């Protein structure tokens, strides 16, 4: 049986996490992608070009315009019946939708897998990534969310899958979409960025967070992140939060600026390829995971770094 990937998309194109999920799915078998949206032909076109996808299923209806879990789960349980595995990225989209699908199918969900051992055995982090559990599912359909940083992105081009329409499911009409308020930014998304510059409580204020962290991020073409302490203090919005209760990231290069390195923050960034820490406290735990550390006042070091990068 083939593997079903639920695409996360905005009707125009695929969200980055979908490509990582396709890579995970390809380890299990032939990959089909379900694009459920409204006027989502462009997203289906993007899905059919992804390397490794053999079929795209398109469900196009107004009730799927905003990814409501109640409406989508009614559809996914119908489509899922022909598959051995159903996968979605472990993003706010997948985490919202997939448990609802699993419960309706009366199967367990395996959350945020980071490795695939076999068709029924998976590795997933628990206790904020301080422990890795290897779990085996006895269910007929495996419903899985995929930690996107643990799998490479599939190539967006190179595939030429057929697109097939699937019947729209009855809408339970339990919820409706009122609006969305997205943080506007020209910077890359945290989840997909190659470089991330994160600021901590040592920044001292929202103004200083902006004045110090943002120019460095822009110089590097990086995304901006923050520790929970900085978010709690109001220096940065919640969707910047990297850590156990925020986003888990694994960029090529991670700058921790004025971040002490609480367990909960480390859980969100310790899989980064190269970690740089700038902190005036020589004993800060962040230095225990950093590849390169500078002990010094961030308000001096960051401007020096900017000057150095401009040379």
């Amino acid at each position, binding site marked *: 049986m083939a593997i079903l990937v639920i695409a996360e998309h905005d009707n125009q194109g695929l969200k980055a996490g979908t490509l990582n999920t396709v890579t995970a799915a390809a380890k299990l078998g032939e990959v089909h992608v379900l694009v459920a949206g409204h006027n989502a032909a462009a997203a289906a076109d993007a899905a059919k070009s992804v390397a490794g996808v053999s079929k795209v299923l398109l469900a196009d209806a107004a009730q799927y315009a*905003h990814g409501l*879990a*109640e409406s989508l*789960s009614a559809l996914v349980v119908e489509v899922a019946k022909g598959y051995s595995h159903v996968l979605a990225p472990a993003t*706010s989209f997948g*985490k*919202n939708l997939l448990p*609802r*699908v*699993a*419960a309706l199918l009366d199967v*367990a969900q*395996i*959350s*945020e897998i980071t490795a695939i051992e076999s068709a029924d*055995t998976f590795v997933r982090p*628990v*206790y*904020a*990534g*301080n*422990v*890795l*559990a*290897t*779990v*085996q*599912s*006895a*269910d007929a359909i495996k419903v899985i969310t995929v930690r996107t940083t643990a799998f490479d992105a599939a190539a967006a081009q190179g595939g030429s899958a057929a697109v097939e329409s699937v019947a729209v499911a009855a809408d339970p009409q*339990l*919820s*409706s*979409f*009122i*609006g*969305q*308020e*997205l*943080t506007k930014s020209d910077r890359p*998304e945290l989840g997909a960025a190659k470089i991330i510059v994160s600021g901590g409580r040592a920044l001292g204020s929202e103004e200083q967070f902006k004045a110090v962290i943002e120019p460095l991020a822009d110089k590097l073409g990086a995304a901006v992140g923050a520790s929970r302490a900085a978010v709690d203090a109001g220096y940065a919005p*919640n*969707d910047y939060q990297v850590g*156990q209760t925020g*986003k888990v990231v694994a960029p090529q*290069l991670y700058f921790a600026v004025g971040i002490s390195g609480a367990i909960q923050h480390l859980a969100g960034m310790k899989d980064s*390829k*190269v*970690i*740089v820490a700038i902190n005036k406290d020589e004993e800060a735990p962040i*230095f225990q995971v*950093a590849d*390169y*550390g*500078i*002990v010094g006042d961030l308000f001096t*070091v960051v401007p*020096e*770094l900017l000057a150095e*990068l401009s040379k």
Partner: protein
Amino acid sequence: MKVLVAVKRVVDYNVKVRVKADGSDVDVANVKMSMNPFDEIAVEEAVRLKEAGKATEIVVVSMGVKQCEETLRTALAMGADRAILVETDTELQPLAVAKLLKAVADKEQPQLLIVGKQAIDDDANQTGQMAAALLGWSQGAFASKVDVAAETVDVIREIDGGLETLKLRLPAVVTADLRLNEPRFIKLPNIMAAKKKPLEKTSPADLGVDVTPRLKTLKVAEPAKRSAGIKVANAAELVAKLKNDAKVL
């Protein structure tokens, strides 16, 4: 409006867990246990709804071993009116908890079920969404603001990249995210008063729910440790290292 809140007893936030020597499980013997922090936020939200005159009664429920009674007493001290313990020594996975929640909700008929978005032990982030599915209710997952009206509830949700507002038809399930509220500090008189509040015990068998685990943990291990790197003297040296050694710039 009656509000049902579910709370989980977990290893305390500040405890760094260890894996047992045989790799079979996490060692939780003699470690401090507390209410899951996200569930604390769920209880707080229910109490605030009651204080605002929107909720009439708060029933708090927990599932698991006998000691979950302590977790329930904490919720009662925060302001819940009465408690239900579904007692069992079986390991409870999210699907089983969701089925138990459905059974309790069928009996109690609340208009709103509030749970934490995730427990900090298994990090599953499933129970609320699963309970909503089994009950056939709407769901507002990862809520940072809840506004209850007569027939509906508006929920602002934390999503990747920002916020989303949904209107849910009641009854509904809401899962609490970090910014929903800041739980109160419990005062001693309230702890004393909580001891007198009613706590009813039941079991999965009484509720007619099969809680057999669906996932088998084959082993647990600690992830590979990252070793500390080097300290560099200044920005110039750092940029040189990043360009020439790490090759990430």
